[in-house]
């Protein structure tokens, strides 16, 4: 065995029970009210390029039961060691085999339909994507409608791949199948469940 990396992974949640509960309620609030920006402010010292929100979501949701796909930009030895130590998730290189996916470089992101979509009998088996974006603003931008939204919500997102609106439209059209997105930016997160309609 050749262990070249000896540094211990940086810490996860200081209080795993309470911090993951608060982070989960943030994620739940975000997906129950698409377009709402929620702060996941637990102190996590995750290695770059993991944002605080992405790290909190991983610690809260991912474990040995959920194969995780990580994009090339995030698959550094430090990040892999951190995830293996704190989450214990199997890392997969097949987007279609992942229950969760971590995207930090949206330009090189695989298309949404490369990830597991679930099927008509078990649409809950689709993947959940944690996508790092450069900006999140709860005004202007996209017009969101659908379950969880009273009239309409507004969400401006910077750093989504070109053609995202069309790709999301196809994802929405496949309802009840399709992937669900958590858009992370620093310690903030907003959700796009598959049920949400997006318009420019």
């Amino acid at each position: 065995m050749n262990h070249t990396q000896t540094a211990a992974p940086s810490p996860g949640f200081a209080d795993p029970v309470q911090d993951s509960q608060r982070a989960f309620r943030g994620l739940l609030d975000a997906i129950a009210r698409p377009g709402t920006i929620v702060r996941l402010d637990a102190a996590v010292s995750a290695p770059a390029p993991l944002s605080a929100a992405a790290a909190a979501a991983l610690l809260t949701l991912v474990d040995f039961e959920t194969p995780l796909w990580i994009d090339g930009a995030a698959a550094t030895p430090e990040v892999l060691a951190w995830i293996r130590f704190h989450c214990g998730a199997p890392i997969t290189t097949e987007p279609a085999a992942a229950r969760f996916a971590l995207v930090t470089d949206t330009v090189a992101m695989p298309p949404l339909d490369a990830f597991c979509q679930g099927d008509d009998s078990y649409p809950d088996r689709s993947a959940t994507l944690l996508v790092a974006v450069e900006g999140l603003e709860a005004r202007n931008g996209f017009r969101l409608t659908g379950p969880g939204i009273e009239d309409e919500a507004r969400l401006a997102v910077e750093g989504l791949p070109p053609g995202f609106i069309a790709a999301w439209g196809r994802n929405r059209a496949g309802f009840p199948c399709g992937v669900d997105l958590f858009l992370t930016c620093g310690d903030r997160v907003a959700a796009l469940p598959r049920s949400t309609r997006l318009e420019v």
Partner: protein
Amino acid sequence: MDGYNFAYLDEQTKRMIRRAILKAVAIPGYQVPFASREMPLPYGWGTGGIQVTAAIIGLADTLKVIDQGADDTTNAVSIRRFFARTTGVATTERTADATIIQTRHRIPERSLRADQIIVFQVPIPEPLRWLEPRETETRKMHALSEYGAMHVKLYEDVARHGRIATAYDYPVMVGGRYLMRPSPIPKFDNPKLDRSPALQLFGAGREKRIYAVPPHTEVYSLDFEDHPFEVQKWEQACALCGAGDSFLDEVIVDDRGGRIFVCSDSDHCGERRAAGHVGAQPDALGQPADKVAP
């Protein structure tokens, strides 16, 4: 409580339930299978609701538990005590003060708010189960949105009784896609499900299913053009608080056939009495209005 994790469940179980809840919210009305655990209460006593509550509850929450609308019935008292002991969170009997409301068979009369989550205890989550016992078939019927059998069932009610006789656990369509059992709430409460500002979560422990209705989501009670959906009405008003628009329970008060009707929602009734509303027999249950704790 020493020897147990916060909220009783271990963290891996909570993660598994939390993942199921997020998928349930993303697919309104669809029943997500989950690995339901044995709880220190028997199946049928609200273990699904308890597991959902245990997965979402935190130190900042205030918990209310009701059983048939009342905070002081056996099931409600034991579940409230369970969470008080395993989490130490504040509990309340006041709907307005709660952030999480776990319920068996009622929705509070007071309108829920966006900062509240209501958790339903569900005995049988599958709306088609009495029409089609095979899970493989009902799953296919949901996949194809093939719900004709339920309309036939309601039509048979009309043919036999002249009206839709289903009075509780009345089937609904969620977001125009999934047929859903709202749990055995009276159909009186069905309109409260529709476009509620609160997140609504449903847990079935024995049947191992979690489902959800996100806020502001359409929940349509099935009906026919010539037999529109309607809720129960009473000729009486609440004997204690005089409410004419709440769901009433019939209570026997003596051994000579004496009976009164009172609000099923004990907090709603107490709040009204504290505000000075008086019914026809305010002392019928031995609780004079001025002695009821607000």
